């Protein structure tokens, strides 16, 4: 029964034009960045590394697919939560608003199964976004530019990942990015369970993500205490797979935090859905 419900939810996602906004946005952004870097990538790196190139002769710093893939990943991963919130924020509340959920609840399926099916369908959508991004941003860029070392730009250092290590690092990073976006998905899903129209959870979800991201960006001591508790601090853990020697303990801790957040959001949404009176 659950599988049939998941299939039905996926069918609904496929039929809604809104589902294609994320895929289209990712495609356009990736192609624009690829074209821009193809045309002017060398100048971009020259600008960023000018303080080092005064002292050293930097050789082998040609743009390659791995580097382009990494730049796209770090650019898009900030925007992707908004695309996920656009779908997940609507998945329950949209049906409450149109009244189709009430009809669905008359069928002989439990509320737990309905919510599980909706959550699995939204997770599959997140997976599709990540896979699509991986194919276009990483494999597409490698096909276009060839492979090579990655230069990971940090605010106070450069990390160079050798070509031989890049495949494993990308696969690990995509897995962590999927988990990070799943938390965003869970959060928007939770807001959707509490709302009776589509707009409120989407806007509230997007605003919260933006607020948390801004707090994470500021180096102010007042924010230091709350940063570890913000889920956006952990959703960018994928970047740590591109450290010269990844801190596995820190990564494992963050992945656990993401899983706990995801479970928390899901179970609160489930509780709300099971106790909510849809007849009113």
């Amino acid at each position, binding site marked *: 029964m659950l599988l049939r419900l998941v299939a039905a939810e996926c069918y609904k996602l496929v039929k809604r034009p809104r589902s294609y906004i994320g895929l289209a946005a990712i495609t356009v952004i990736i192609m624009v960045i690829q074209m821009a870097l193809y045309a002017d990538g060398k100048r971009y790196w020259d600008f960023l590394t000018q*303080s080092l190139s005064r*002292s050293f002769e930097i050789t082998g710093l040609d743009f390659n697919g791995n580097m382009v893939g990494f730049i796209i990943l770090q650019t898009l991963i900030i925007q992707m939560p908004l695309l996920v919130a656009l779908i997940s924020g609507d998945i329950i509340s949209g049906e409450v608003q149109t009244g189709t959920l009430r009809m669905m609840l008359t069928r002989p399926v439990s509320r737990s199964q309905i919510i599980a099916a909706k959550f699995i369908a939204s997770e599959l959508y997140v997976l599709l976004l990540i896979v699509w991004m991986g194919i276009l941003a990483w494999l597409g860029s490698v096909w276009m530019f060839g492979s090579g070392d990655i230069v990971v730009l940090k605010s*106070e*250092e*450069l*990390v160079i990942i050798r070509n031989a290590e890049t495949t494993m690092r990308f696969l690990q990073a995509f897995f962590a990015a999927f988990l990070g976006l799943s938390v965003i998905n869970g959060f928007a899903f939770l807001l959707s369970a509490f709302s009776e129209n589509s707009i409120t959870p989407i806007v509230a979800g997007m605003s919260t993500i933006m607020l948390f991201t801004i707090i994470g*960006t500021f180096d102010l001591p007042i924010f230091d205490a709350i*940063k570890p508790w913000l889920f956006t601090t952990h959703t960018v853990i994928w970047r740590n797979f591109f450290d010269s020697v990844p801190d596995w303990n820190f990564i494992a801790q963050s992945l656990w935090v993401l899983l706990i957040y995801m479970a928390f959001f899901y179970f609160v949404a489930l509780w709300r859905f099971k106790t909510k009176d849809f007849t009113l």
Partner: protein
Amino acid sequence: MKIIRLITLFLGFNMSVAIAQTPSTQLYQVAKEFGKIASFNANVKVQFLIPSVQMSDLTGTMSYAKPNKYNIHLTGIAFLPKQNPFEIYRLLADTTQYTAIAQGNQNIGNHVCQLITVLPFKQTDLMLAKFWVETGTHMVHKTEVTTREQGTVETLYTYGAKVNWPLPDRLNVSVDMSRFQVPKMVSADINSVRKQSLPKSAKGKIIFNMSNYKIKRG
């Protein structure tokens, strides 16, 4: 007659020692020793100890050909000194271009070296160069080259198996550098914590470990 011969021989010996000990002559001897090499190839492993740059070692090949053709071939991104490390020998060959001042003996590792400071006559990019030359073998064990463009580059030379040739097994190059920094939003490094204690400037080290020299005599 025998006594006159002995005196002449003694004086001649003393004079040659005196000539050899002038700093310019000593540096000329260094250049002359290196000038015996027409070209060489070697395998090289390069270590990068550069503050604010995290990168693993690279292996490749290094080649040199007279008078000044130097090439290092590595697969991947590398940070290398801007100066050709063998350029100093070309500089030293023409003793009319600089004045050399001996500044006493100093130990570099286990080697007793004479510190010679070189000041070029013409105003070029090179401002000052210091050489630590081992007395007797004419091997350079350390250099400190100050240029207008790149500041001071210090190089330590460690010799091993090819001790008959002035080719080091290990070159340790220290370069003046400024700290790397970009805004957080440019690097998209959202959760990083700024390290307040980092100095504005530092020394970056590049260590070349050479092996399997193939030398052509010139």
